[in-house]
């Protein structure tokens, strides 16, 4: 048996705390007792998640078989996580993530991880105390908001520069005017074509 990385033990510990603190997660864990799931992210060592006595164990997968295997490229897993694991998010089997083995067990593990999603502020408070954890959480939340706002503003400024200053791109009113002109031209051409066809028919009738 190879050594289990320390970071995996830390993740396992956090997830087990979340399972214990949530009755629905604990029930999901009991349903999975005796089962295992192999998670293989391309380019990284595979992880084996297994359940015994209501407790989740995360270990390096090695060659050990598992009841279900979920594998895919890192971006597909990131998309899966970013979209949420629940009903509103991307489901495994889509977007490059592949499932083999018992799909029902894979689905139950997805349900477990969704229910056992840790409260990061609570976990942080275990390390640095409640008040500092609250402050760090608020600071992180502000930082995320700032990054989002910065991204939106920077995008708007760049678009404005390219459209109004550099004139590399057209702005929306100009584009709409151009498209309207194209539509008008097409309609006029259609009318002329129809009139010419009509005149041709009249000429044929006169001869």
């Amino acid at each position, binding site marked *: 048996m190879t050594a289990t990385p320390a970071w995996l*033990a830390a993740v396992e510990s956090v997830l087990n705390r979340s399972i214990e603190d949530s009755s629905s997660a604990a029930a999901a864990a009991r349903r999975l007792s005796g089962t295992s799931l192999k998670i293989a992210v391309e380019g990284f060592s595979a992880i084996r998640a297994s359940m*015994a*006595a209501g407790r989740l164990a995360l270990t390096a997968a090695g060659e050990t078989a598992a009841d279900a295997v979920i594998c895919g490229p890192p971006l597909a897993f990131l998309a899966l996580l970013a979209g949420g694991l629940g009903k509103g998010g991307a489901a495994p089997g889509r977007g490059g993530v592949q499932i083999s083995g018992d799909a029902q067990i894979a689905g139950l593990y997805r349900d477990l991880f969704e229910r056992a999603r840790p409260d990061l502020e609570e976990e942080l408070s275990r390390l640095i105390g409640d008040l500092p954890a609250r402050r760090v959480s608020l600071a992180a939340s502000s930082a995320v908001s700032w990054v989002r706002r910065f991204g939106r503003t920077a995008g708007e400024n760049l678009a404005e520069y390219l459209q109004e200053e550099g004139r590399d791109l057209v702005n929306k009113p100009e584009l709409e005017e151009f498209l309207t002109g194209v539509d008008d031209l097409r309609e006029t051409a259609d009318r002329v074509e129809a009139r010419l066809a009509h005149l041709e028919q009249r000429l044929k009738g006169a001869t």
Partner: protein
Amino acid sequence: MTIKDPTVDFGFERVSWAEKAARVRQVFTNVSGKYDVMNDLMSFGVHRLWKQFTLSLTGLKAGQQALDVAGGTGDLARGLLRQVGKDGRVILSDINPSMLRAGRDRLLDAGHAGNVQCLIADAERLPFADDSFHCVTIGFGLRNVTDKAAALSSMHRVLKPGGQLLVLEFSTPVAPGLKPLYDAYSFKVLPAMGRWVAKDADSYRYLAESIRMHPDQETLLGMLENAGFSQARYHNLTGGIVALHRGYKI
């Protein structure tokens, strides 16, 4: 029937079982006064991170019971006390009265009283009823135990079903290129440090030798499984200089 070898390792020496127990007791009586200072010096303070990692895996909740075997000056016990809270209970046990006295004083100085008991106990014959604790820890103590298999069985016995044993101990470096550096540090620097700071080079030479004679990661893992632990596994820390073994009583 298995006939036990009448001798056992004491560092690089082979001594009788009774002699090892007596000499280990003497080593820790000698070093108890400077134990914490030496730990910080020898590990550059990293032993605190190893212990913090161990504590992060206990899974203990408020109101539960924990046992720290060979707990010495009580580093792990203090963390366990924080986890079980006032409604829980922690037993700090050690076979050496000098070490236990230092541990008890540190716990009292840190304001812990009422939910902690300090007890002189032999790890091979823990004086507790079966199924007593949610978690048992032993930090840098197992290699000094004369009969390690007996100690592991004893710790398995006192754990509640579902309880976890955490064994933090020096092990075999696995990081490439680390072993020669580690050997030079252990056999040259450590005894010199012991001579200058603790005025006791022999005890720290024993420390280095006992680490080399301690079972490596896979061997200790097998010992945990033989003692009845389920889901046994280990985590290498600092390139394998230290390993944390864990197993559950299912």
